């Protein structure tokens, strides 16, 4: 019981530390937000869209924005740990190292959600489309979990390399393809008002990938961070 408490306390401590530091510096969130807004603005000018086409491309544009902005956040979040040796400080704590993974994943997910909460109304305004549908929000929730689950693991790996800024997308994007396809298809389904039974397989796929990615990351994180 004591071990379980210390494990949960460590997860909470890491997430709290990341959020407290970020709310003060706003380095990571401002980079993610500015980048996301620029991406949707560029798409807005690049794609002259009628109402019908808009519904079919919105899911793709949204997920491209989230994925690219998320990569910036994941890179920065782990670089903060590595650059001042703080990762060693975390690794020296007497807790199972998967607690570090879950703590970082929770804070990365929180940053993703903050960006998404701001991007969705901005996108709705620019493209004149209603994105505040419970089903679509649920898909974004599931997709973000899958993305940060594997992104946190791979950012811990790429941060050890000299070319970490380039390395993370190279490692992450091929692995994240199943989550991305399922998220785009499910989001597109809701936007095009497809029947639920056509969307359900993609949501199931998202849930399965989320579970698989979290389980794999839990098992291998210790080996990724130890020299």
């Amino acid at each position: 019981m004591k071990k379980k408490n210390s494990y949960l306390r460590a997860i909470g401590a890491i997430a709290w530390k990341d959020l407290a530091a970020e709310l003060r510096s706003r380095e990571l969130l401002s980079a993610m937000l500015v980048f996301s807004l620029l991406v949707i603005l560029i798409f807005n000018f690049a794609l002259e869209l009628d109402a019908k086409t808009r519904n079919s491309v919105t899911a793709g544009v949204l997920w491209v924005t989230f994925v690219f902005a998320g990569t910036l956040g994941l890179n920065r979040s782990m670089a903060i740990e590595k650059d001042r040796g703080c990762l060693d400080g975390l690794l020296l704590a007497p807790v199972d190292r998967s607690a570090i993974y879950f703590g970082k994943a929770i804070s990365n997910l929180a940053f993703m959600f903050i960006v998404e909460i701001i991007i969705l109304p901005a996108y709705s305004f620019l493209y004149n489309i209603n994105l505040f549908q419970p089903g679509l929000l649920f898909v974004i929730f599931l997709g973000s979990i899958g993305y940060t689950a594997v992104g946190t693991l791979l950012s811990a790996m790429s941060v050890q390399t000299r070319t970490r800024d380039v390395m993370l997308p190279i490692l992450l994007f091929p692995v994240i393809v199943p989550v991305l396809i399922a998220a785009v298809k499910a989001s597109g389904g809701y936007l095009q008002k497809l029947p639920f039974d056509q969307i359900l397989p993609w949501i199931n796929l998202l849930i399965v990938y989320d579970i698989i990615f979290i389980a794999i990351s839990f098992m291998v994180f210790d080996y990724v961070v130890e020299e």
Partner: protein
Amino acid sequence: MIRVKKLVKRFGLKTVLRGMDFSVENGEFVALIGPNGAGKSTFLRILASLTRPSMGSVSVAGFSLPKEAADVRRKLGVVSHQPLLYVDLTAAENLKFYGRMYNLPDVDTRIIEVLEMVGLTKRRDDLVRTYSRGMQQRLAIGRAVLHDPSVMLFDEPYTGLDQDASAMLDDVLRTVAARGRTVVMTSHDLARTEDLATRFDVLSRGKIAASATHKDFGSGNLLNFYKNVLEEGKKQ
């Protein structure tokens, strides 16, 4: 307290530690000195369970590595040339974070004690990014002793400090970090090391080339002893 037998560490084809034997008794302050690239930092990282040994046995405070790494980490305090602190958190927030990571029962009281020990009580609510390098290193010592470890590892703690800050760190090392604890320290500052440590081990080419105490080489002669050991090593 620390037992190391036939320790080998390889990074790819490069062998850094070559069958190293090393031991430290309870309460001893051992300085590990040696040229750059001798493997001092790698060795300390193995003791700290941050790096896995390739071969050999390592035990710290009765627990073997890497099997009982979590138990070893509970007994260890580590100060390196990097402070391992978050610059966007205050001193008190940094200590609170590490207190929660170590699952300390009464963190707030312990933070007050530790800040008092390292002389940073008045700056407890200032962001670490506003601290000088010397103050950061004092806070790093506070972080390392927060959970009252029985073994301390110092990896080049004087790096980047001016003379005043180094002198202040000397006091904190002696009175806070080392008192009643087993210590292993690596440093290139031989004068300071001679003043602090009780035993001096020279690490050269991945092995302990010589070990001596003050009695063996006389006061103020650590530099000569060190040079002699390295020269003998080159001849062999």
